């Protein structure tokens, strides 16, 4: 986006003129034309270095209308008083600060090593007598985090946490010291908001959206990130090795140092973790322009797609979560072995040796002992098992250590598609249908992210987040256009239960929509949520049962609202070339305007490549004493 605007000569010329004027007014007072700094600044003036894309990105400038503004919300990031809005003044002030005498860690050369490196490359500052500053802390830090390789890490979406709903991205840096070069021993460079622990979920969501929390970069051992994502949150992780060379990684680290304690307002959808990872990569490899396409929303999987698209990454390494590993391993056991795993993990008092002796050979015994340990640890981490199993865990390991050493499992199977190979997250749909005897055309725009019928490749089955989904409808009979629905948020999480894992399935949905009242169709606000169980029936079939509560408010309702509770049962079918959902929902509205509603619905969607899909819906409603049907077919475009 920045790039496009820069290529407009008219606007740029105006901006430049304004900057030159402002600049010329300021410079004679602060730098003598004879000084080395003055000479350089004069040179910069003519070369318009401050308009260089690399410089703009180093200071995180963005074009807002006709003028620049840095995304940084911290005065410490600027050397000029108006540095946030003036690339030229900031550049001149930065140069002046570099030439200032002094010798401590607060010197500009120590605080802005990436700027120094870039300017030195362009202007050969040493030839002008740049003072040599000893940046002790910087040197020490660079020794500690000397990196030779960088990896883009993408922990997959996590519906149970608002801040990680769409996933998260961070960088893993591999130290130069070969002893620390294994993934677990390397370290994570992470950008995240510093939230206020006392805020409740609503305040949290609101502040997250409007930039109410400061965001910061931090560095942690990568194994801590594994504990968090893989062990605690059961999120599979995709690791994309980046083909950055040593110079690029050095510049990335220099810039990381510059922004380490700098506050950026954290915006959940735009200036978020993924956006700032991209901004680091943009600095590391000039000309990447990765952030340009993410001014309105930065969905982590979309940002990964952008990195792959420009060729900075290609194949990802799949790191299955602890839960995924346990599930894959359990699938290799027979019913008896599974039963022994269960007994050993959950009933420490059961006859240990007797259980083990029922198994046929050492490989079976090893597998059962390891799984019992893993599952017991899982239960402890999820707080579903009291921490009284230390003795049993230890006994499991002792028994395992008495069997032959070595791996007893086949390699973990990885999903057929990497996350970035899935559909894009913005969806535009055009459809035609008939409701309650009325023909209509429909147009729907959903900025993010995925629903259960969207093409499944690269996404996890049974999860859905529709955000700000807007649907307009044009009635062909009375030739009226109206807002049919604006979904603020629509989350569905169907996690199948089995003998070992007992997750809750749930939904939440809030928005404005057309609704049927006793006085006819009206526009109102609705909120509904549900909670229940789902089960897998074979590989291609998921059934669900959810208790549901729903409130609708509209002036057309008697007492302006209706509140009810009911049940929703259904089945998700994953066919080879399509996905379908059959559901039956009954709700008794007992408060406000009373009513009983029953809805039966069948939906099916056929992906056409990764960019398009065709879907249709057939539904039968019994509502407010009326029966009517609804059919619609539509084409979806993902972009």
């Amino acid at each position, binding site marked *: 986006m920045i790039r496009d605007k820069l290529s407009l000569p008219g606007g740029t010329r105006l901006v430049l003129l304004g900057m030159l004027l402002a600049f010329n007014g300021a410079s004679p007072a602060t730098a003598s034309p004879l000084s080395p700094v003055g000479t350089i600044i004069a040179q910069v003036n003519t070369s318009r270095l401050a308009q260089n894309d690399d410089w703009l990105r180093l200071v995180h400038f963005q074009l807002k209308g006709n003028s620049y503004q840095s995304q940084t919300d911290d005065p410490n990031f600027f050397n000029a008083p108006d540095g946030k809005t003036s690339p030229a003044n900031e550049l001149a002030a930065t140069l002046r600060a570099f030439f200032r005498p002094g010798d401590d860690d607060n010197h500009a050369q120590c605080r802005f090593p990436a700027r120094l490196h870039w300017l030195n490359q362009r202007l050969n500052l040493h030839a002008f007598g740049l003072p040599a500053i000893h940046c002790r802390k910087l040197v*020490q*830090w660079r*020794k*500690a*985090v000397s990196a030779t390789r960088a990896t883009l890490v993408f922990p997959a979406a996590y519906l149970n*946490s608002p*801040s*990680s709903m769409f996933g*998260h991205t961070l960088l893993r840096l591999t*130290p130069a*010291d*070969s*002893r*620390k*070069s*294994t993934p*677990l*021993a*390397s*370290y994570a460079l*992470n950008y*995240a*908001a*510093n*939230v206020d*622990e006392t805020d409740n979920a609503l305040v949290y969501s609101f502040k997250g959206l409007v930039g109410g929390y400061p965001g*910061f*970069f*931090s*560095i*942690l*051992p*990568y*194994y*801590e990130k594994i*504990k*968090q994502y893989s062990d*605690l949150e059961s999120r599979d992780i995709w690791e994309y090795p980046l083909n950055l060379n040593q110079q690029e990684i050095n510049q990335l680290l220099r810039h990381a140092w510059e922004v380490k*304690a700098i506050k950026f307002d954290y915006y959940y959808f735009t200036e978020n*973790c993924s956006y700032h990872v991209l901004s680091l990569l943009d600095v590391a490899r000039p000309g990447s322009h990765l952030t340009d396409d993410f001014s309105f929303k930065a969905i982590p999987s979309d940002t990964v797609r952008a990195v792959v698209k420009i060729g900075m990454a290609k194949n990802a390494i799949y790191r299955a979560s602890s839960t995924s590993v346990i599930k894959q391993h359990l699938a290799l056991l027979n019913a008896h072995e599974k039963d022994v795993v269960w007994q050993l993990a959950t009933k420490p008092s059961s006859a240990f040796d007797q259980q083990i002796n029922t198994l046929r050979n050492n490989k079976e015994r*090893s597998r059962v002992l*390891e799984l019992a*340990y893993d599952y017991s640890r899982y239960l*402890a*981490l999820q*707080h579903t098992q009291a*921490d009284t*199993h*230390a003795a049993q*865990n*230890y*006994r499991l*390991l*002792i028994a395992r*250590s008495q069997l*032959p*050493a*070595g*791996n*007893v499992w086949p390699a973990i199977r990885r999903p057929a598609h990497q996350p970035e190979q899935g559909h894009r997250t913005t969806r535009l749909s055009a459809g035609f249908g008939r409701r309650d005897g009325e023909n209509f055309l429909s147009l729907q725009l959903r900025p993010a992210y995925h629903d259960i019928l969207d093409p499944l490749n690269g996404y996890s089955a049974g999860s859905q987040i529709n955000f700000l989904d807007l649907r307009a409808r044009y009635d062909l009979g009375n030739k009226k256009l109206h807002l049919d629905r604006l979904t603020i948020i629509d989350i569905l999480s169907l996690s199948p239960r089995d003998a070992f894992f007992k997750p809750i399935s749930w939904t939440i949905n809030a928005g404005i929509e057309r609704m049927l009242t006793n006085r006819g169709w009206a526009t109102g606000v609705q909120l509904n949520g549900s909670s229940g169980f789902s089960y897998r029936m074979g590989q291609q079939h998921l059934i669900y049962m959810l208790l549901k509560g729903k409130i609708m408010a509209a002036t057309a309702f008697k007492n302006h609202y209706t509140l009810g509770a009911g049940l929703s049962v259904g089945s998700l079918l994953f066919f080879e070339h399509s996905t379908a959902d059959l559901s039956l929902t009954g709700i008794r509205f007992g408060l406000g305007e009373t009513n009983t509603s029953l809805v039966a619905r069948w939906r099916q969607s056929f992906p056409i490549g990764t960019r398009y899909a065709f879907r249709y819906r057939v539904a039968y409603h019994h509502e407010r004493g009326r029966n009517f049907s609804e059919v619609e077919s539509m084409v979806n475009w993902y972009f």
Partner: protein
Amino acid sequence: MIKRTILAVTLLAGSSVAFAANDSGSGCGAGAMIFKGQSGLAPHVLAATTNGTLGNQTFGMTSGTSGCNASQPISVAAVDFIDHNMEKVARGMATGSGESMDTLANLMGISSQDSERFKVLTHDQFATIFTRDNIHSNEVIANLNNVMKQDVILAKYAG
């Protein structure tokens, strides 16, 4: 070498109070007891709901791979890894395989041709290294060191 490390860690643990307040648990070389994850876990669970961002942000390598500061010998990193990954290291030794053992061997500077021997030795000597179900990491490290000292090949990696 490990013994020296333990001494260094003990000294550093006293001198690095300022570093201790990070969200990765016990801080620099403070040690950890196996299967005692529950109380230490609470902040992690909280952190998990917010992308791990609660509490203090750390940018220096106050824990983990660099040990307590940049100029520490590498084995501090190995000690640190054991401190923070006791349950995984125990599992790795009991099975004689896995990523945690590869990482530990590498952190201890064990060459690739000796690392298989390291895994087999720690597997065979599991009960000597992890002597009980509430063992502290400092003891694990001391026991590991003793076991390695008695091995003709691996002795050179021990202190």
